[in-house]
């Protein structure tokens, strides 16, 4: 099963996991300016390196380009200019197929990323079928059950037969994580993975991700406006503002001593629970 996806693409394990080199994305928008088409620049020559084993946080407000960058990195959106490299290789068809399997994506809203009409089992094993991993039947079921269990859904047999509406928000997000983990990825890109969840459930889901990271050496990329999440989970922070990287560095350094005005504003906007003297 391994052989079918290789097709001569030798991924260099020592190269960065994913790399964006001078990536720009422009969207055509409605209307014209002095007769010429109008464009919106979502990303403006962004360079980014995501190393194997690293947990990276891409931070910025709505419209900063962070989700666009995430989509470009996954090969879901071709950049207008610039290049994305996976394991040191430019994204060709063969590399893209490997990338799709190795780097999985987790979206914000588990209510929307699961189909209401299929059981948890069907959805967790769907990726196995697409990527032709394991034998149909017993083997795929075993992989799926193990993934549910690893995502903290125990006993997995019980969850296997359930439908999404029978689950809580936190359980649904863990089903999504299990579906991604079933494919044995090297990395997960998580786009606002917990912002739709309650605080206590949020902690459960983040702990599942942290456990998977330490057990399997998973690389994680968080796309978020939540500085708290970046603080709790990431090794390194990249701050995006209007399509540009305005600051990057180790999480501890950026949070303790932000250099760019925008980063300072972003940190100051985080509401504090400190309610000491008035």
């Amino acid at each position, binding site marked *: 099963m391994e052989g079918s996806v290789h097709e001569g693409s030798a991924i260099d394990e020592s190269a960065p996991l994913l790399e964006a080199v001078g990536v720009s994305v422009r969207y055509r928008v409605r209307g014209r300016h002095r007769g010429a088409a109008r464009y919106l620049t979502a990303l403006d020559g962004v360079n980014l390196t995501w190393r194997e084993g690293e947990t990276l946080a891409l931070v910025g*407000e*709505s*419209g900063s380009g962070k989700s666009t960058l995430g989509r470009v990195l996954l090969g879901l959106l071709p950049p207008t200019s610039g290049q994305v490299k996976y394991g040191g290789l430019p994204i060709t068809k063969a590399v893209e197929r490997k990338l799709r399997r190795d780097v999985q994506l987790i979206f914000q809203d588990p209510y929307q990323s699961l189909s209401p009409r299929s059981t948890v089992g069907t959805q967790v094993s769907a990726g196995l079928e697409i990527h032709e991993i394991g034998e149909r039947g017993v083997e795929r079921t075993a992989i799926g059950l193990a993934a549910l269990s690893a995502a903290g859904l125990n006993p997995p047999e019980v969850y296997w037969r359930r439908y999404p509406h029978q689950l*809580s*928000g*936190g359980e649904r997000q863990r089903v999504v994580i299990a579906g991604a983990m079933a494919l044995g990825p090297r990395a997960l890109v998580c786009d606002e993975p917990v912002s739709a969840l*309650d*605080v*206590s*459930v*949020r*902690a*459960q889901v*983040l*702990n599942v991700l*942290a456990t998977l990271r330490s057990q399997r050496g998973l690389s994680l990329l968080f796309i978020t*406006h*939540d*500085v*708290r999440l970046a*603080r*709790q*989970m*990431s*090794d390194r922070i990249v701050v995006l503002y209007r399509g540009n990287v305005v600051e990057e560095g180790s*999480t*501890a350094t950026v*949070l303790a001593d932000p250099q760019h005005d925008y980063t300072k*504003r*972003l940190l*100051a*906007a*985080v*509401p*504090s*629970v*400190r*309610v*000491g*003297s*008035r």
Partner: protein
Amino acid sequence: MTTARQQAGVGLIPDAAAPILQISGLTVVSRDKPTVHIVDDVSLTLRRGEALGIAGESGCGKTTTALAIMGLLSGGLKRTSGELTFFGRNGTKPLHKLSGAAMRKVRWASISMVFQGAMNALDPVKTVGAQIAEAIVLHEPRLSRSAVLKRVSQLLDQVGVASKRSVYYPHEFSGGQKQRLMIALALACRPELVIADEPTTALDVITQAQILDLIGELRRELGLSLLMITHDLAVLAQACEKIAVMYAGQVVETGRVEDVYRFPQHPYTARLLDLLGADDAPGTLPEPIPGNQPRPDARPVACRFHDRCAFATERCATEAPLLREVSPQGMVTDHWARCHYSPWAGGRVPDRPAGTATVDGKQEVL
């Protein structure tokens, strides 16, 4: 942070202000299963000009409490007991006794609401000005056309949207601006009390801070009273003077924000505050609370939190704790908690992690 709180309007009102809304013994049940109490014997007082935040996880009953006040409970829910008294400028009204028609007069004109996910609640095929005007005309039909238009542009001004944009459609606004429009809509008939259900939840931090500032400004300018429903204790700390924490249909702790955040008297509140991880070193995750909040039809007997509580004893599983005053001796702080072992009520919680909250960055020991 002091300034952020003051900007958000906190600390404006003396504690002695008269109540504007009194909820006593509110119980809401499911019509299908009348033994299932969605909201169970909730009593709260909101003073005029004050901001009270109701906090809790999804399903704790906080939104149902708000809808019960507005008389907007959905068909499957029913208020079985409890009194809701509104002390308005035009006299005292027992909301629980009002007919549908009488309630419609109070709603929006005296008490209005900013709904959850409100940004998507605007009608996409009407201009925003027309939608605000519609609300005004419905409640004040005798107002002249020019007076209505004047009020619309005043309202847009107040919430920081250029009044010339009243002829725009909802899709031409950003998420934060749509939230401003929803606030303008809530203020359209000059209410005394605004109920805001998760007003900043879908917004990013910068927009969230702007909306919280706006709410504070409006409180100062208009003397509004505010009931804020939120699951985010950090937002609540910034916007409110008082807090009520709900769990499984009940209020488990209530008091002034300073007291509750510094000296939480219920283990659930303390754990929620821990989860914010405000002072943890980067890279550390708070320990989650084991288990989940029980569904309304599957709540444990006695203390509803006991099966998830690290400090629970046998007593917690057999004897339901009452909501009782827990202020330290000799002090009147109006701080209440529903726990047998609240430190200030003489109870002693074994190995309780002391000083879970911090004050001015310093660890403080209970």
